[in-house]
């Protein structure tokens, strides 16, 4: 029962709210009621309520261009109340000043006819604006397009110039960023009677003109008039591709605007611009054109200085020379720097006022520009001079130009630069000898610094002898013969090293033999002192110790211990007669015990004999 009540209450509320929602109404507003001619305002007609609504197909008012730009829908649920609304957007473009009344418009919604309120739009005249949409920048500024899409202007800062004078020129091209322009033909200055330098793009900025943003591309160049007279510079023409919306779905029944470049009325009113993804645009090619600018060209005054080469502007000149101390005939590089602003293509090398005593070579030049178009910069000339005689200073250089600001010629002269020209190295005038004549000594170098080498010189005679073998320019270290010759010391070094290695090995073998003998002698002495051996063994070992010690002590080395006898040992150790006798007896007894065979058995050696033998052996040093 309670649940049925609750459901009924909700249904009643929904019904009531639905009843409220079913009452459509319409409102209309302008985004701005005060505008100037050429500025657009937005008109919105909002229909709230269910069902489809049909906006006014056409709003036609004299002096205003009004056309639909799009539709938006909104749905809201608030406190169980659902609201839906449709907003119809229009762009209003005033074509003339005055007070305009937008009368009530009839809108059919929910089966009812609704009327919008009356709207008032005050349109002011566009004061200070040229006949186009582009805000004026000066006399040269001219509108090009349908006011707000794109424009071009040519800025020439001078009204009067001289023949040959470089006049900087600036070209500004502005595009509404929404049309996404692509320049397919760069701007070009048309006209006759002048030459223009290559156009240089100097920057891109975003500027707001009449409340509308523009991408402004600036180009710089310079022109120079070829003859006197009155000329028209320009117009500047260019071609660009811009994006415009395709044909609109909304019906159009009015005529084309005289300012519409693309036959699309005002492209900004297209929903494409508010939502580029809603509908694809298309590229169209448009021509941009500026207004021409008048320029009066005057001829240069007469009586130009002799060093005038056509330079017009404002320049300064500095000069330097290097080296400053030379011999007669040596080159001196004189560097002249001309800096300033003007037509540098007509700036030639300064002229030499007095070339006497100098040999001058053609100058070289290089130019370093300080701006985009080369109006200002520095031009450097390197001129090589060779003194033919003693000189105190380098030649004075002169350069002239015409200053259009002062309207007169200006002559510049270089400061005299002190140099030192040392002694003469000129060749003597050697007469040519007849071929085949005996060769005299080499031509001697005579003359002083004050003797210029003005006389023609002649070369020496022919040489008729020729070596049997040809010579080579190749340095010695690159010739095969040189590296082949290195084999000789290399092989000698190998032989030397081999010999040294062999010597070392031999020395090592002898050392090992000596060590073995020393070891053997020590062992035998140890046995002799132990007193445990038979006489035969004892004397054999004793004589062996003597032999080994003799072999070790011999200076000549390499003595075989087995070849040592008593005399050799005595001589080696330089024994006296007693010791020599003892040594002889020791060897005799050793031989006797070794070969007689008489004393085999248990005979022992007396301690006196043992001490005597040990004493003898230990004294062998």
């Amino acid at each position, binding site marked *: 029962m309670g649940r049925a009540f609750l459901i009924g209450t909700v249904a009643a509320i929904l019904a009531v709210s639905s009843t409220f929602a079913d009452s459509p109404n319409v409102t209309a507003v302008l985004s701005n009621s005060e505008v100037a001619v050429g500025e657009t305002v937005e008109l919105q007609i909002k229909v709230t309520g269910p069902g489809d609504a049909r906006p006014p197909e056409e709003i036609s008012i004299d002096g205003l261009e009004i056309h639909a730009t799009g539709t938006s829908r909104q749905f809201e649920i608030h406190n169980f109340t659902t609201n839906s609304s449709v907003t119809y957007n229009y762009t209003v473009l005033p074509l003339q000043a005055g007070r305009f009344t937008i009368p009530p418009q009839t809108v059919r919604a929910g089966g009812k006819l609704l009327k919008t309120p009356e709207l008032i739009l005050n349109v002011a005249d566009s004061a200070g604006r040229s006949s186009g949409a582009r805000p004026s920048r000066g006399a040269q500024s001219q509108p090009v397009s349908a006011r707000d899409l794109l424009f071009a202007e040519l800025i020439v800062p001078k009204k009067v110039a001289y023949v040959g004078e470089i006049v900087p020129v600036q070209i500004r091209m502005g595009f509404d960023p929404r049309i996404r322009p692509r320049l397919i033909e760069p701007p070009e200055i048309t006209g006759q009677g002048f030459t223009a330098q290559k156009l240089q793009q100097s920057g891109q900025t975003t500027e707001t003109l009449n409340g509308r943003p523009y991408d402004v591309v600036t180009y710089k160049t310079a022109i120079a008039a070829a003859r006197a007279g009155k000329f028209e510079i320009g117009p500047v023409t260019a071609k660009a591709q811009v994006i415009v919306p395709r044909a609109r779905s909304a019906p159009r029944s009015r005529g084309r605007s005289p300012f519409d470049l693309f036959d699309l009325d005002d492209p900004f009113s297209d929903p494409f611009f508010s939502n580029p993804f809603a509908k694809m645009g298309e590229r169209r090619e448009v021509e941009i054109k500026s207004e021409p600018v008048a320029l009066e060209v005057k001829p240069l005054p007469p009586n130009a200085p002799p060093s005038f080469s056509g330079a017009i502007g404002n320049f300064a000149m500095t000069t330097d020379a290097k080296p400053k101390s030379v011999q007669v005939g040596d080159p001196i590089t004189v560097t002249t720097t001309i800096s300033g602003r003007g037509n540098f293509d007509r700036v030639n090398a300064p002229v030499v006022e007095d070339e006497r005593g100098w040999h001058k070579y053609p100058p070289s030049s290089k130019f370093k520009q300080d701006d985009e178009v080369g109006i200002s910069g520095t031009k450097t000339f390197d001129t*090589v001079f060779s003194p033919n005689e003693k000189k105190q200073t380098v030649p004075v250089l002169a350069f002239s130009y015409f200053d259009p600001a002062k309207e007169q010629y200006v002559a510049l002269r270089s400061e005299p630069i002190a140099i030192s020209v040392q002694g003469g190295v000129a060749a003597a005038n050697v007469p040519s000898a007849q071929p*085949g004549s005996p060769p005299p000594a080499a031509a001697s170098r005579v003359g002083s610094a004050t003797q210029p080498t003005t006389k023609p010189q002649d070369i020496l005679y022919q040489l008729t002898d*020729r*070596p049997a073998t040809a010579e080579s320019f190749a340095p010695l270290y690159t010739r095969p013969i040189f590296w082949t010759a290195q084999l000789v010391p290399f092989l000698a070094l190998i032989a030397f090293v081999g010999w040294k290695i062999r010597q070392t090995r031999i020395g090592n073998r002898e050392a090992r033999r000596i060590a073995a003998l020393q070891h053997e002698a020590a062992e035998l002495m140890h046995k002799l002192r132990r007193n445990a051996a038979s006489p035969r063994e004892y004397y054999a070992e004793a004589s062996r110790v003597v032999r080994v010690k003799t072999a070790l002590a011999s200076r000549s080395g390499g003595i075989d211990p087995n070849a040592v006898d008593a005399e050799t040992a005595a001589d080696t150790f330089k024994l006296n007669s007693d010791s020599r006798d003892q040594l002889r007896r020791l060897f005799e007894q050793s031989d006797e015990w070794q070969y007689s065979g008489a004393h085999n058995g248990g005979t022992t050696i007396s301690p006196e004999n043992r001490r005597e033998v040990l004493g003898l052996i230990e004294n062998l040093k």
Partner: protein
Amino acid sequence: MKARAFQIAFLFCALATSSVLGQADVEFAKANQEYAQGHFKEAISGYETLVRAGQWSANVFYDLGNAYFRTGDFGRAVLNYERALVLEPHHPEATANLQIARDEAHALELQPGRLERYLEFASVNQYTVTAAVAFWIAAFCLAALVFTRRRSRATLTLLLVMLLISAGGIVSIWQLERGSKGSALAVVTGKDVQARLATADTANSVLALPPGSEVKILSTRGDWIYAALPNNLRGWIPAKNAERMRLL
């Protein structure tokens, strides 16, 4: 049999060599005769034939330089005098005539650096021999030191001195070879030659180079060479307007 074949081959080579030398002598004498008769172009042709055949000698280049001088080609005259001096640095006639030709042409010379001027008291070949001899002496000293138990201080000192001399010789060779009179030296043979900032006839000029001027080739790009110029400048000149000093 083999010995006989070797003898025949040796005899053949000797005959061929003497034939070539004899032919060169004839060509040289003929060119000299043409020069004496004032037929300088014919003389140039004869001397150039010898040069192309590799019969290089200081006198041939000197005579060729004289012939070019007589025809007014001072650039090639300077070139050939300098070639004669490369082969024979103390060639008095070539030295004298070179100076005359340079004066006539107002040729510019490359100035050697300070170190190069000091090193020029000896030639590259002399430095080469010195470095090689010092190197081998050092090698023997080192071998003696390695294989001797008692190392002599004198041997060690000699080793160090020889190594220093050898290294000094190598550095001198390197310095002279890359210097103003080194392997990259060339002489301007064309007339009205301009060294330019870039490889184009319209590029800005760096320096006007009279015939006979010396340049040092730094690199080559197509028909242009990048060269160090007199007065410490650098620039591009057409390759056809300069010839290398050394013939290889």
